[in-house]
C-alpha cells in the first residue's frame, strides 16, 4: 500500500472550498506529506459547484488520482453528487445541522458533525469548514499541531481569528476522536521540507530568480495568478509590474522593455495570446528576446474559461505571419514551471528570439508540494552576447544584425554610445537599414532570413533530447506532451504492473524538434499511442509534420476535466483488445457536472442532462 489518501472537498463558489483545501494542503505540507490538488470550478463568483480533489501521500503524487477516500461536503449538492464516489473504507464529513445524506455506499462511514454545538450557534457559516478540517485531520491519524500552525500563519495579523479557528478545529478534532473510526490507511509525517505552490506562482517566482525586471499583463483566467504573484512582490524585487489596456499593448510593451536590455515577460491565455501574435513576429524579425506564457484553457473563443485543455499548440506554432525562429516549450508538471521560465529567459537572450511557454490551467492553478531543495537549485543566468554602456568598446563599426555563423548578432542595448541602430519590422540588412522601400535586394533578403533561421540549429543543441521513460522493451509506447507527464507516467507504471509492458515518451520542447532522435525511438516502438487533451490531435499532427511518423492510436480528452490514470489505462486496454484507433475519454461522473438551468430551448430538462 502506498500510504495515500485522496480527499474531495466540495461546495458552491463562495462556500470556501479553496480556503478549506488550502488549510488542509498546507497542514499536510508542514507534516512533510506531498499533496497534488486539482480544483474543478466554474466561471462564477458565487454559486455553482466547486470541487477540489487533494491526493496526499508520503510519495509524491503526480496527479489527482482516480477516486476519493474522504469527502468533506460543504453543501447538500456536494453530498448528493460525491457520496456515491467514495471507496470502501471511505469517510464522509458533513454539517449535521444542515445536510442530510442519502444512503452511503457499502463500507463508507458517515461522519455527521454537530456544527452549532462545536462552533457555537453564532459562528460564521465558514466555521463549518474549520470544524470539518479538524475532524478530518484526526481521522487521517495526524497531529493537530500542523493545522494550528497553519491558522497562526494565515491569520498572523489577527490573533482573535486564530483563536476562533483553532478552537473550532480542535472541537472537530476531539469530536471525531470520540465518535468516529479513523481511516484504516494511516498517513505518517516525514522530514521532507515542502512548499505548497501553484504553477502560476512558480512561473512568477522562476521569472524573478531569473532576473526578470518587467512584467506586464491584462487580466485573463487562468493566467492572472502570475500577475497576482508579481504585483505584491514588485517593490521588493525591483520588478516594474504594469496592468495595461489589452494584450496587444502587453506584448508590445514587453518587447519595448526587452529591446532596452531588460528581461521581460508576460502571461495570458489563448484569447490574449491570439492578440499577441503579430508582435511575436516583430520580436522574431527585430531579434528581441521576450518570453510569452500562454496558460491554455478550453477553447475556441471564450470556450471554457475555468477548464483545462491542450489546444493552443497550433496557435503557438502558427503565431504571426512569416517564418521566424521561435522556441515553444510546455512545462510537464507544476514544479517544471519553475525551471521552464528560467530556461526560457536564457534561451531568449542567447538566441534573441521569442520564447513561448505553453502552460495549462491544470498546472497554473493546480497546487503541488515541491521540495524546498528543488526551489533552492540555482540555474545560471546566461544573457548571450550583450553590449552595454559598461562593456562597450568604441570606435568600431557596429552592425546590429551582423551575419554570423550562428545567426546570433551581438546585441547593443540602446543607451550604449557609438552603437546607434534602428530595429525595423521591415526586412533589413545587417546594419538595420530596411530593404523594403526604395532599396531592395533579394540577395540581402535571403541572407537575413537565413541568418535568423540558423539560430534554430543552435537552439536544438541547447535543449535536451526527449528520452524514453520505462523499459526499452515494451508492448506499448505512450507519447504525451506538457501537463500530462505525471498522469501518463502513473498509467504506464500501472499497466506494466498489470502485465502490459508500457513505456513513455514525453515532450517538453515542441519547437524546434529533435527529429532524428525521436524517430530512432519511435521506429523501435511496437505500438505507439498519443495521449493529448484536445479534439483534433494537434500534437499528433505536429509529430507527423516534423518526422513523418504516424502513431498507431490516440487517446483524446477535450471535455474540460483533466485525465485521471484510469482514463489512460482503460484507453490503452481498449486499443489493445478492440483495435481502436481513437479513444475519446469523457468524464461522466455527477461530480463534474451541474445541470443545465431551465431555459428557452425545446428540450426538456431530462433530455438535456442526457
Amino acid at each position, binding site marked *: 500500500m502506498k500510504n495515500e489518501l485522496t480527499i474531495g472537498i466540495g461546495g458552491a463558489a463562495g462556500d470556501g472550498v479553496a480556503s478549506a483545501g488550502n488549510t488542509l494542503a498546507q497542514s499536510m505540507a508542514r507534516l512533510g506529506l506531498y499533496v497534488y490538488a486539482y480544483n474543478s470550478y466554474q466561471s462564477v463568483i458565487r454559486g455553482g459547484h466547486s470541487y477540489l480533489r487533494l491526493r496526499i501521500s508520503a510519495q509524491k503524487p503526480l496527479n489527482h488520482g482516480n477516486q476519493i477516500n474522504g469527502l468533506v461536503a460543504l453543501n447538500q449538492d456536494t453530498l448528493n453528487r460525491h457520496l456515491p464516489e467514495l471507496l470502501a473504507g471511505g469517510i464522509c464529513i458533513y454539517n449535521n445541522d444542515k445536510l442530510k445524506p442519502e444512503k452511503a455506499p457499502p463500507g463508507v462511514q458517515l461522519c455527521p458533525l454537530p456544527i452549532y454545538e462545536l462552533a457555537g450557534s453564532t459562528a460564521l457559516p465558514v466555521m463549518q469548514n474549520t470544524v470539518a478540517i479538524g475532524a478530518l485531520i484526526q481521522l487521517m491519524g495526524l497531529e493537530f499541531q500542523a493545522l494550528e500552525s497553519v491558522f497562526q500563519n494565515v491569520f498572523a495579523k489577527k490573533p482573535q481569528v486564530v483563536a476562533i479557528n483553532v478552537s473550532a478545529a480542535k472541537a472537530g478534532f476531539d469530536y471525531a476522536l470520540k465518535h468516529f473510526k479513523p481511516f484504516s490507511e494511516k498517513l505518517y509525517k516525514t522530514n521532507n*521540507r515542502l512548499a505548497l505552490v501553484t504553477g502560476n506562482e512558480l512561473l512568477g517566482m522562476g521569472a524573478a530568480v531569473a532576473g526578470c525586471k518587467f512584467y506586464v499583463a491584462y487580466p485573463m483566467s487562468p493566467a492572472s495568478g502570475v500577475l497576482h504573484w508579481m504585483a505584491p512582490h514588485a517593490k521588493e524585487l525591483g520588478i*516594474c509590474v*504594469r496592468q495595461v489596456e489589452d494584450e496587444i499593448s502587453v506584448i*508590445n510593451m514587453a518587447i519595448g522593455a526587452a529591446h532596452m536590455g*531588460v528581461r521581460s515577460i508576460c502571461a495570458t491565455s489563448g484569447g490574449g495570446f491570439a492578440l499577441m501574435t503579430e508582435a511575436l513576429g516583430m520580436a522574431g524579425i527585430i531579434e528581441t528576446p521576450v518570453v510569452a506564457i500562454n496558460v491554455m484553457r478550453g477553447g475556441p473563443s471564450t470556450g471554457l474559461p475555468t477548464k483545462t485543455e491542450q489546444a493552443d499548440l497550433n496557435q503557438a506554432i502558427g503565431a504571426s505571419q512569416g517564418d521566424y525562429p521561435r522556441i515553444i516549450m510546455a512545462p510537464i508538471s507544476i514544479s517544471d514551471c519553475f525551471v521552464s521560465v528560467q530556461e526560457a529567459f536564457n534561451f531568449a537572450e542567447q538566441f534573441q528570439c521569442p520564447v513561448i511557454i505553453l502552460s495549462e490551467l491544470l498546472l497554473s492553478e493546480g497546487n503541488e508540494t515541491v521540495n524546498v531543495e528543488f526551489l533552492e537549485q540555482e540555474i545560471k543566468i546566461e544573457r548571450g552576447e550583450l553590449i552595454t554602456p559598461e562593456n562597450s568598446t568604441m570606435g568600431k563599426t557596429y552592425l546590429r544584425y551582423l551575419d554570423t555563423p550562428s545567426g546570433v548578432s551581438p546585441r547593443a542595448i540602446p543607451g550604449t554610445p557609438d552603437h*546607434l541602430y*534602428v530595429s525595423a519590422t521591415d526586412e533589413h540588412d545587417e546594419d538595420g537599414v530596411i530593404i523594403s522601400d526604395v532599396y531592395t535586394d533579394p540577395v540581402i533578403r535571403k541572407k537575413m532570413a537565413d541568418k535568423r533561421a540558423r539560430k534554430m540549429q543552435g537552439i536544438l543543441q541547447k535543449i535536451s533530447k526527449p528520452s524514453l521513460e520505462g523499459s526499452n522493451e515494451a508492448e506499448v509506447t505512450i507519447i504525451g506532451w506538457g501537463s500530462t507527464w505525471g498522469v501518463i507516467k502513473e498509467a504506464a507504471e500501472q499497466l506494466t504492473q498489470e502485465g502490459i509492458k508500457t513505456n513513455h515518451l514525453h515532450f517538453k520542447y515542441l519547437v524546434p524538434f529533435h527529429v532524428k532522435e525521436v524517430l530512432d525511438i519511435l521506429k523501435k516502438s511496437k505500438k505507439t499511442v498519443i495521449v493529448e487533451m484536445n479534439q483534433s490531435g494537434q500534437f499528433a499532427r505536429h509529430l507527423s509534420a516534423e518526422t513523418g511518423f504516424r502513431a498507431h492510436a490516440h487517446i483524446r480528452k477535450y471535455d474540460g476535466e483533466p485525465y485521471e490514470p484510469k482514463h489512460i489505462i482503460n484507453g490503452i486496454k481498449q486499443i489493445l483488445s478492440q483495435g481502436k484507433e481513437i479513444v475519446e475519454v469523457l468524464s461522466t461522473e455527477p461530480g463534474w457536472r451541474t445541470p443545465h438551468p431551465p431555459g428557452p430551448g425545446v428540450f426538456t430538462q431530462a433530455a438535456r442532462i442526457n
Partner: protein
Amino acid sequence: MAMTIAVSKEAKHYKSEITPDWCPGCGDYGVLTVLQRACAELNIPNHEILLVSGIGCSSNIPGFFKSYGVHSLHGRALPVATGAKLANHSMTVIAAGGDGDGYGIGQGHFIHAMRRNIDLTYIVMNNEIYGLTTGQTSPTSETNMKTKSTPFGNLEGQLNPLALAIAAGCGFVARGFSGDINHLKTLYMEAIKYPGFALVDVFSPCVTFNKQNTFGWFKERVYKLEDVNHDASQLHSAMEKTLEWGAKIPIGIFYKNPNPRVSLDRLDSTLSGKPLAYQSIGVSKEIRKKLIEEYV
C-alpha cells in the same frame, strides 16, 4: 580613456546616412528637419534618444534620424515606447507616426498612454489620409471627403484628437503645421521638456493622395494661439479651442498643465534608482529563501 568634449550639436548631427524616401513636397520632411533642430538645440546626445515609430509613410522617420530607433508595428509605437521608457527612464523617448497609425489602429493605446502619463513625446504626422496604402479614408479625414475607399464621400465623422487628448488627461497638447517650421520647433522643444506625456499633432500634408487638405488649404486657415493670447494653462478654454475647425484652425500649445501630474516613470518606486536596463540581474540567496519561505 577618451576625452569627452562637450560639443554643441547642430541639426546635421541628427541626420542619418539614409535619404528620406517620402514623395517630393511631403509634409514629413518638415517634421524630420524640425525634430533634428529641436534635439540639437536641446543638445541631447544621439545615443540617449530612442525614436519609436509604427508603420506608414511617416513611420519611416527613425531610419532618417540619427539615434537609436525602433520601427515597430502598425499602431504599436506607443506601447513599444512605453515599455522602452520604463526599462530605461534615462533615455529621451519619442514616439512618432501617422494619423492612421495613432488615431486609427492605435487609438486604444493612444488614450491609455495619455491616461497612464509616461514621460514621452508623441508626434503625429496628421495628413488626414492613409498614404502608404495609396489613399484611403482616415479617422481624421473630413466628413464627405472622397477617397479611394469612400468614392461617394466619407459618411463618418472626423476624429478630434486634441479634444480626445485633453479628455484623456494629457498634460501637454499641441498642434503644429509642417509649413511653419520655426513655430513647430518651439512646440517640439516644449513637448520634449514637458515632464509627462506630450502630444504634438502636426498638419503634415500628403501631396499625393490628399487633394483636399493641401499646404495651401492649411496656410489659408491656420492661425497661432499665441497671437490670440490663448491661456494654455486653462483646461476649459483649451478644450474650446480644440473644437475650432473650418475657416480658421488654431495651431500652437492648446493645453499645458501648470501643475503637471507626476509621470508614471517617476511614480513607480521600482524606477526610482538606476534604470532597470542598467541594473545587475538575479536575486540573492537570502531573497530567494524569503520567496520560498512564503509557501512553506
